[in-house]
């Protein structure tokens, strides 16, 4: 009852203030637009807006970012579906089936499903967030130390390798490339310089955002450009035929499964929505009767990925608000917003500014709900982007990607890295290696090495220490089981590895 009262209080505060309403709708539309414009993402918008939140009240600043977070995760699905450019890594699995659907002329259906499922996943996770933030946070902070997070990363990599690429070997090699790229820069224990080749800028390491922009946005532009140059370019077919309620209802189990998976992945610091989407997708494949259809334009693929990543948004707010631990790039920027107002997210926020917390919670809930209404309207507009001749769209995409890559750290080398990754992605797509696997290896590699080192320091360099940490042990065992299952699949089945959707993305 207290939750309901607080929620109503937050709602009243949110909608009784004209500036608040303006910012709310600005955030909803901005998140969707930036999520949906190829080459930029909600992270770009957030990075650009960060300095400006200093002029807003803390409530408005945090609210704006949380609204952008909700709608941006959805907005990224639109480009994933229409252009095979995931707006953010968490939309990558959406492209596995969403883009093939566009090619089959079912773009409207895929986008419609993404709209509905994002809204459902996000709203449900918001409700759980409101009820559970405090108790779950208390549990997670003491139960999830570095050993557990490392075990989770290992599990995540094992899962990702088995969904990633054309073969078992290529899947693992892709992940390993990502892990090696993550090594560049300062080591996470002693700050020792690794693989800098005497270039000071490489000491900053290679950031995953330019890599994502390069592998997905830029290399997609290259592939289309090649078709354009060789005269094989075909404009994608347009359709605004949305899925019927009956079609969605048929996937109710997938939705519920993804909500649960997404929520639990989202709550873990540093893992968040990306793994949520991959796991949601992978589980959908695993539980499905006709798994060979995945990756060829199956609606359930879009549904399970989009539900899971939006479900992770609400969950990601829990460690952020309750513990001050950001789960991803965007929540990390929210920490920046807090600090610009001389506040720290963490236990204090609940004590000092309960109003802020509940305004933010209410705003997130309504942002998710508004995805349904504004999302449909916006989609009908955005789908028309496909009508712009590609030679005009391409320089715009490339330059927006340039700004996006540069804005993260202000390093020109990030732009270079992005375009080299674009060229690399262009050739890798011909080879059966998985660019999604490389990106995931890069993101998780940094966390993985650091938490491994911390875990070993904490366990006094004895692997047997894991025996005393049941959660970590369970996750490690689950990771090894996944690994064994995929080894089995690779050696003893005559057909290629079944779960290989990334290959389709990589080759189309």
């Amino acid at each position, binding site marked *: 009852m207290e939750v309901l009262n607080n929620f109503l209080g937050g709602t009243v505060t949110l909608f009784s203030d004209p500036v608040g309403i303006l910012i709310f709708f600005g955030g909803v539309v901005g998140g969707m637009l930036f999520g949906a414009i190829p080459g930029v993402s909600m992270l770009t918008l957030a990075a650009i807006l960060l300095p400006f939140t200093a002029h807003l009240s803390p409530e408005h600043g945090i609210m704006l970012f949380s609204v952008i977070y909700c709608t941006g995760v959805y907005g990224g699905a639109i480009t994933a579906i229409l252009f095979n450019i995931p707006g953010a890594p968490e939309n990558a699995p959406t492209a596995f089936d969403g883009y093939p659907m566009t090619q089959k002329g079912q773009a409207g259906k895929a986008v419609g499903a993404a709209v509905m499922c994002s809204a459902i996943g996000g709203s449900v996770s918001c409700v759980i967030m409101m009820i559970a933030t405090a108790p779950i946070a208390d549990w997670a902070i003491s139960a999830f*130390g570095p050993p557990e997070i490392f075990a989770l990363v290992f599990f995540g990599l094992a899962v990702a390798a088995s969904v990633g690429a054309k073969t078992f070997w290529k899947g693992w090699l892709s992940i390993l490339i990502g892990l090696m790229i993550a090594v560049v*820069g300062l080591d996470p224990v*002693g700050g*020792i310089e690794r693989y800098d080749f005497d270039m000071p800028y490489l000491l*900053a390491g290679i950031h995953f955002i330019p890599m994502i922009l390069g592998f997905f946005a830029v290399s997609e532009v290259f592939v289309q450009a090649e078709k354009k140059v060789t005269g094989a370019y075909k404009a994608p077919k347009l359709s605004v035929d949305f899925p019927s309620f009956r079609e969605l209802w048929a996937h109710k189990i997938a939705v519920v499964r993804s909500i649960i998976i997404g929520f639990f992945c989202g709550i873990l610091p540093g893992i968040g929505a990306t793994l949520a989407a991959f796991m949601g997708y992978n589980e959908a494949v695993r539980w499905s009767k006709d798994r060979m259809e995945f990756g060829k334009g199956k609606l359930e693929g879009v549904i399970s990925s989009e539900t899971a990543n939006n479900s992770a948004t609400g969950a990601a707010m829990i460690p952020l608000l309750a513990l001050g631990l950001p789960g991803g790039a965007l929540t990390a920027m929210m920490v920046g917003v807090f600090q*610009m107002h001389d506040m720290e997210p963490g236990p204090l926020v609940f004590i000092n500014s309960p109003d802020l917390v509940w305004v933010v919670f209410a705003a997130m809930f309504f942002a998710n709900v508004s995805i349904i209404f504004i999302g449909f309207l916006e989609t009908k507009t955005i789908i028309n982007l496909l009508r712009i001749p590609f030679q005009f769209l391409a320089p715009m995409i490339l330059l927006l990607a340039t700004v996006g890559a540069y804005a993260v750290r202000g390093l020109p080398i990030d732009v270079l890295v992005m375009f080299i990754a674009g060229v690399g992605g262009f050739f890798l797509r011909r080879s059966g290696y998985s660019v999604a696997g490389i990106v995931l290896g890069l993101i998780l590699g940094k966390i993985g090495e650091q938490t491994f080192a911390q875990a070993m*320091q*904490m366990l006094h360099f004895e692997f047997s220490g894991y025996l005393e940490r049941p959660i970590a042990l369970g996750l490690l065992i689950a990771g090894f089981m996944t690994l064994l299952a995929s080894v089995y699949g690779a050696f003893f089945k005559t057909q290629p590895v079944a779960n290989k959707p990334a290959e389709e993305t990589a080759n189309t």
Partner: protein
Amino acid sequence: MLKKLLLSASVTAAATLLSAGPVFAACATDSLPGSLEGPGGYPERALTMIVPYGPAGGSGQVAQAMAEAVTELTKVSINRDHKPGGSGTVGMTAYMAAPADGYSVLEHIDDASSAHALDSGRPNPADDLIPLVTSQITFSQIYIRTEEDRFTDWDSFVEWVKAQGGKASIANVSKEGSMERVTMRFITDATGMEIQQISFDKGAPRYGALAGGQVDALFEQPGDVRNFLDAGKFKPILTILKESPSAFADVPNLTDAGLDFEPLLRFRGFYVHKDAPAERVEWLKWAFQKAYCEPSYQAYNESKFMTLIDSYRDTAGSQELITSTIGQYRDVYKAMGLEVK
């Protein structure tokens, strides 16, 4: 309902205002002129401030506070350009590559001094750059959870750690040779205790590790964990200074704990190219030193526990601080057996 909410919001706002209110005490640069004409119309456009750390950390925040104070004072706007990475190396490299026309300034911390101490190929902030002002100087402390019952103060902590035979742990930063790691080395050498340091490169997970009981103690500066202190979650058990500042009068300092070493300080300041036109440098010195005493900057420093010890150094004072810091680190590194280039 609504009224109540609005009221509570305005009360919070008022309280924030009060706590961040004007500082009445005399300030270090009160004697400087209130305004100064730049040479030949300079600056005719916005300045760029390169910050070698992210916007959210201690450096990002001080850069913002100082940039705003300079703008308030001079009406010249400052664009902040964050170039994080490589423990400040990347931002420093980018700054050294920018044209030395007096339109770009650099924020940096004591890491630049320790980096130069280890490798003299790296720029020396006192020689290769001109310090405009050092605006934050602070000290470190050791923290434990307030609810901790295995030990409650420094003496019982040391005793407990020794009883664990090397299994006790403390969260620290992830850069060898940094102020934090060198200081921990001093402490373990002086007390003879063996404690496993756990390396965290980001602040939030480091604090979370102590709050969640993953580690037994935390090494940090008070301004960075002020919220945890105010909320009563963490408490300091050792101040790494020879004399206790009044705000931490009841926390033992190095002298009380019988630890005999020179404390290393964390300091943040602003710099300009040594080749920048001299008149422009003079104007920048005035602007940044005077801005230090702007009420908004002073309020910011106060909120970050930066007024507990004297946080201000002018150009000569900064050069002295940097030079002595470099010497101190060089001695330490040699004693630690590190290769000093």
